[in-house]
């Protein structure tokens, strides 16, 4: 055990490769995709489907939080996995390219991550194999409802077991489902995906009654009713999904079908968050780094040098801003790395995960806001991508737990408080 900060080879290689993808397949279409909301960059999606399989991973769904990728390699038996570190690096780089396009990278996203975190080995086998198929395939996670966002305990979607057919019958309204359209609706170019829907099997049990269900694409009774128009990440579809007596096989429940009056079922969702929050944080760092690098480049083109090493009293206002932005990006990245490193080393990382998300949500908004400000009329002009990154950035502080919700998680951990002691 030691303190060190060197990327292992596979990480360097992955970064190098994805830098090429970002440069050649993302940035050139970034603007076009932003201007044509809901258009699909098939070139990128198909390329990534092949590339990610070749690379072994690339989305949250492609690895199990409980077991590293290296574990089946006997020569590496003793070495800790670097799977999460690799993934965080990949996502950071893709988000540097275009975070909206990253969100429509095939591979299962949050839906597959939920199966990884809460599914049985059989369920993983059954539901996740599809992501290695010929066609790009998507999965989505449906937690949020019109009246239940941060407060997930307010979820009203119900799952009732039909004892005769041994099917779950699910009814409710879900909103803001990332990749909901691509996961559920029929697209000839894509493989058959699924959505993971959170519902209560016993409303009187509160959180203890919450379960998630895998619902296959095209299941009758389920409909995508709307695609949202958004401030940013416009290339990513954000769907409303209504479920009206949708019938789902008994074995599609993730976790126990009975209610033990504990919150273990819900803890599945929370475990998913421990795994995915640093990854979302990584994408925030990617956007922030993109903005920072662009600012530095545009300033350098204008002959502006940043004098690192000077006392503050001698720095120009722009220099101060840029240095501060660099501090933010760097430190946020280190927090991501610590959180994923802990995951790789099987250390509980709820605190560090939420910390990295708080930090990333903070800095990516600040850095992109500053970037637009510094570049003045150019920053605000759609000829450049800075204004787009400013719009894309904001979502980092909203999904996967808002900045406030993650502050709550951090504070509870620090103070040793339960959810009822600190609401």
């Amino acid at each position, binding site marked *: 055990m030691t*303190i060190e900060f060197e990327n292992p080879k596979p990480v360097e290689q992955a970064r190098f490769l994805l830098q090429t993808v970002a440069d050649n397949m993302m940035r050139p279409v970034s603007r076009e995709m932003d201007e044509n909301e809901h258009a699909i960059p098939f070139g990128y999606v198909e390329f990534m489907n092949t590339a990610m399989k070749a690379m072994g991973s690339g989305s949250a769904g492609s690895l199990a939080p409980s077991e590293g990728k290296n574990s089946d390699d006997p020569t590496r038996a003793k070495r800790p996995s670097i799977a999460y570190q690799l993934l965080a690096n990949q996502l950071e780089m893709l988000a540097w390219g275009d975070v909206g396009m990253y969100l429509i990278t095939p591979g299962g996203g949050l839906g597959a991550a939920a199966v990884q975190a809460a599914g049985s080995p059989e369920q993983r086998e059954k539901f996740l194999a599809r992501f290695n198929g010929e066609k790009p395939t998507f999965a989505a996670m449906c937690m949020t409802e019109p009246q239940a966002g941060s407060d997930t305990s307010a979820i009203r979607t119900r799952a009732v077991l039909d004892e005769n057919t041994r099917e779950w019958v699910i009814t409710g309204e879900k909103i803001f489902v990332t990749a909901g359209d691509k996961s559920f609706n029929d697209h000839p170019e894509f493989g058959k995906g699924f959505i993971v829907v959170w519902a209560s099997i016993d409303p009187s049990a509160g959180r203890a009654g919450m379960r998630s269900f895998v619902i296959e694409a095209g299941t009758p009774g389920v409909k995508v009713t709307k695609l949202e128009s958004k401030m940013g990440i416009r290339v990513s579809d954000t769907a409303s999904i209504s479920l009206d007596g949708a019938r789902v096989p008994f074995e599609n429940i993730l976790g126990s079908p009975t209610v033990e009056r504990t919150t273990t079922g819900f803890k599945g969702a929370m475990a998913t968050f421990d795994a995915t929050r640093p990854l979302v944080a990584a994408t925030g760092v990617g956007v922030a780094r993109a903005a920072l690098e662009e600012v530095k480049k545009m300033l350098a083109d204008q002959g502006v040098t940043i004098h690192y090493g000077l*006392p*503050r009293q001698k720095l120009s206002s722009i220099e101060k801003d840029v240095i501060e932005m660099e501090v933010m990006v760097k430190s946020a990245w280190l*927090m991501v790395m*610590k959180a994923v*490193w*802990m995951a790789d080393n099987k250390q509980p990382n709820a605190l560090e995960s939420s910390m990295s998300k708080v930090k990333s949500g903070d800095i990516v908004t600040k850095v992109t806001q500053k970037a637009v400000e510094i570049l003045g009329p150019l920053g605000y002009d759609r000829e450049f991508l800075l204004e787009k990154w400013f719009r894309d950035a904001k979502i980092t502080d909203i999904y996967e737990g808002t900045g406030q919700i993650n502050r709550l998680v951090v504070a509870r951990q620090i103070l040793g408080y339960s959810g009822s002691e600190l609401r």
Partner: protein
Amino acid sequence: MYGFTPTEEQKMLIDAVARFSKSDLRTAAHAAEEHKNLAQRLVNKGWELGLLQASTPDIYGGFGERSSVTGVLAAEELGFGDLAGAIAIMTPGLFVLPILLAGNEQQKTNYIPQVIEGSWRPFTSALIEPSFDFDPNALKTTAKKVDNGFVLNGVKTYVPFANQAEAMVVYAALDGVTKGFIVSKNITGMEVSDRIKLMSLNALPMYRVTFKDVKVPETSLLEGDFEPVLAGMRVTNAALAVGVARAAFEYACGYAKERDAFGVKIAQKQAIAFMLAEMGVEIESTRLLTWEAAWKLDMAKEDAAHDAYLATTSASDMVMSVTDRAVQILGGHGYIRDHPVEMWMRNGRGFATFTGLAIV
């Protein structure tokens, strides 16, 4: 690879430092600040932890190799205990490490063993100058080459233990480039002021030192680059700031869980809890920046000095806001000197200026 766990050896050292810091430094801090006096016994005990000795190769009387990572881990712990005490204990390092980093073989053998072997003795250095835009890379103190040596002119301030120092490293601009010069006590033209009084660090004896046509021999020049020395000072400053911030943060957490208002503990109010969460996040993020910069220094990475600058920049902002929040969380009680948070807040403002008071 990435790694975030200290080695076993580092852990043992850090544990020892942490114990001392908590049971000795911290308990003495308040009285030391109030009475403007740090017990020599305490400084000696801190010296005996052997931090500097462990950074010095055995040929110069020590028993190890310098590691900035180990150094910043230790500095955080010391800063957590008490900043004034931490700086006092580390002061001889201000003399030894620059010689180790930038001196020649003869300077090392001449000077280092006498500091390292035996008990704590006052050896120090003079970097900071009394001007608002003090810049370690554009010093107003000058060194001029003359026959058989150099002539130093200028004013230094914030020099710990200058009145009793047996020797110090004085930094001056030689043809516009910062260089260190070894200056022994009682040299003609050097004048040490009365003790200076600052917003905090009252326990630490510090002085203004004036150099008027001070002639030093050729052999006093540290020929090596100042950059790694400055980088070392910067990561140390950052690490001490993290320690002070953590002290304030932990104190505020404990207080917030005890203090009642409106029928609940104040920590149960989001306004307080969110401040604490943000303090925790900012401390951790600066700590990681500091570790990475220190690691890069150890690995002699090209951008190590750059990262050290970012770390200290981040740290001075972070420690100011964290210590301010800590006072805020204690409310009126935070403003009363019986609680340590107001002292940490006074410490906190200083880190923008303190680079040069310690190096690991």
